[in-house]
């Protein structure tokens, strides 16, 4: 579904690469966790995969299509939720969702049905008439989730998606994520909450200083330890 091949990205004016020769493969049906310390290169990778950020070397393929060569076709198949849900505050929730529906050319019936389904599940229906500038951080996050799912993407990429969600919404969202992948979708997301990653993810990748430290099945990476222990060990090893 998503293949990252030798991805490298260096920001202008900086000596060190933000992402250095990173390769990953996310298959349909997988929830793939992406963990690393602050500034490790997670957001850069996710933004490059979603077509927001240009990259220097390597390639990113979505369903076998190169994001360099055919970005629009790739973007039609995926959705991205950033770490901070900056949405158009002057629109109401429903205006925003309808706008996203128009952008992705979702038939009216389908968009109405998905908006009703996901907003009910995330308990946002009553607030859809209000302007986004009246929303709390959690409500914006819920709206960003609904907007991401409105065109039924095959690949979902998220940067810290659980930040701001209340426990109930967080639980519901995990169920949505599982169901999304059970239906053939793939999810690639970053998180600092290692307990969530451990319980939710089929596979995990750990990144440090822009370089991939380890990646693979959760059980294989974790072994007999907790993901937190593994992460700390790997990061310290790398330091040493």
């Amino acid at each position, binding site marked *: 579904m998503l293949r990252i091949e030798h991805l490298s990205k260096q*920001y*202008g*004016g900086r000596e060190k690469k933000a992402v250095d020769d990173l390769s990953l493969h996310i298959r349909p049906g997988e929830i793939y966790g992406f963990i690393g310390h602050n500034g490790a290169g997670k957001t850069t990778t996710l*933004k490059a995969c*979603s*077509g*927001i*950020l*240009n990259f220097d070397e390597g390639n990113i393929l979505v369903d076998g299509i190169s994001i360099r060569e055919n*970005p*629009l*076709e790739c*973007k*039609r198949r995926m*959705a*991205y939720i*950033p770490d*901070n849900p*900056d*949405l*158009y505050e*002057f*629109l*109401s*929730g*429903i*205006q925003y969702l*309808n*706008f*996203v*529906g*128009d*952008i*992705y*050319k979702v*038939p*009216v019936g389908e*968009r*109405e049905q998905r*908006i*009703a389904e996901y907003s009910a599940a995330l308990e946002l*229906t*009553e*607030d*859809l*008439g*209000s*302007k986004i*500038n*009246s*929303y709390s951080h959690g409500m914006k996050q819920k709206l960003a989730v609904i907007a991401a799912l409105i065109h039924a993407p095959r690949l979902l990429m998220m940067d810290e998606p659980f930040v701001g969600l209340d426990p109930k919404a967080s639980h519901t969202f995990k169920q949505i994520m599982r169901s999304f992948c059970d239906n053939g979708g793939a999810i690639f997301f970053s998180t600092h909450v290692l307990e969530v990653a451990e319980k939710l993810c089929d596979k995990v990748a750990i990144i440090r200083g822009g370089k991939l430290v380890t990646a693979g099945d959760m059980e294989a990476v974790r072994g007999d330890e907790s993901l937190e222990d593994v992460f700390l060990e790997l990061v310290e090893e790398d330091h040493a």
Partner: protein
Amino acid sequence: MLKTLLSVRLKALADSMLNRRRGKKSGGKGMKALLIFLLIYCVVVFGGMFGFMFYGMYEPFGMLEMQWLYYAMAGVMGTMLCFVGSVFFTQSVIFDAKDNELLLSMPIPASVILGSRMSLLLLLNYAYSALFTIPCGVVRCILGPVTAGGVVQYVLSALLLPLLPTALSCAVGWLIALIISRVRNKSFVTLVVSLVFLGAYMVVCFNMQSYIERLIANGAAIGAAIRRVLPMFYAMGLGVAGGDWGQTALFALWCVVPFAVMYALLSRSFVRIATMKRGSAKVKYVARSLRASSVRWALTRKELIHLGSSSAYMLNGCMGAVMSVALAALCVFRGRGFLQSVANIYAGGADITMYIMPFACVLECFTLAMNIISAPSISLEGKNLWTLQSAPVKAGDVLISKVLMHLIVCVPAALISSLLFVLALPMSPAEKLMMFLLPLVLTLFMALLGVIVNLRWPRFDYTNETAVIKQSASVTITMFSGWGVVLVPLLLYIFLLRKVIAPVTMMAAFAAVLAIACVVMYDYLTHRAEKAFANLNQD
């Protein structure tokens, strides 16, 4: 601490003007040179205009032995300009600044934060008042003998003057903030209040010539009225003209006391207003059938909703549309004499009898060039840019939607304005055609130019949208380029081609050149701007 906060605000202002981006030191030599040129242009144009005005006032007041009125007029006009110039800015600078909460969480007294905000307004007002106080002083030095004491008193008065309009702006900004905290439609209320101020200012501006003529004819009576109604300016005038230090001290009190009172009052309510919930009222959603739109129309509608939701964007972006219709309406009601009175103020009193239609068309074009709706539209995507960059939309669709927003607002204004001029003035069929065609082509040119300039000089790291709308490089460059585009063929015609071709032929040629430029710009935005759009905000 106050110094640090003020320097941060000034740096943000300078960065906004020079289009410096995070981590990059300079906005480029070209940008600096361009802004210096624009600054000199403003100083020459406005300084010259107000210099002539003061030149015309000095002798009549001297003959009436009311020299104080000369200085008092500088005070009144400077105060008016400062007030109108800063009142729209006050609320965003003081109460709506996005870093208010961050600063309030730091060990900085609220009074110091407020002090830094008010100081910034005061500096802005020094710039505005200088447009009057400097020409007034220079003309005075040219036309009569000066004493060292008189110069000191005048400089002191000029330095004190902006305190008063700053206090007034803060008072009105405070009232607006209080009112909109209690109403549902904040943006609409702000727009209405702002339009009332703007309307009053425009009425005064368009009648300035007749006011000055009446003032000179009835100097004694009007002087007495100013003395009674505006005693602070009487004190200022008398202090400077008569060398009366007592009056200068009185004027100082008139300026310092309101400023200090306003500072004390705002200090009490600053935290409450700055931290009140800004969002709109909650509306319970009732599910309705949704309507699908094309990608381009969805993007355009989003732009229009953004424009309609921001009073600052509407006021600054659509100013030219309002002014073009207002000018044409005044021409309908007051006849061609109105155009001559405009020429008296802005064209050095040129006799436009033979060129009524071209003058009306140029006037309309100048006002339409003030429409800068599309110029900040890319910057205004701000932190939401990810939405468009991650969506399967062509850059061309995004950019043309911004052009369409500009056209949807400005084309009706251009048509109404042209229609009113056509109804009010005698014109041949060819002139009527040009009266419609040229403003329309210019409107399209401004819409396209704004997007291209903003694509070249975007700004995303702002703390308040008003900063991008009012002070960004893209807005300044677009507006002055628009004026330049109107001015160059006008000067070319006046000085070179007047005796060679008819005005209407020149206008047709100008429209053709603009149309070609529009085709080139449209082609760039739809076919060749993909890379520039993808490269936005990559740092």
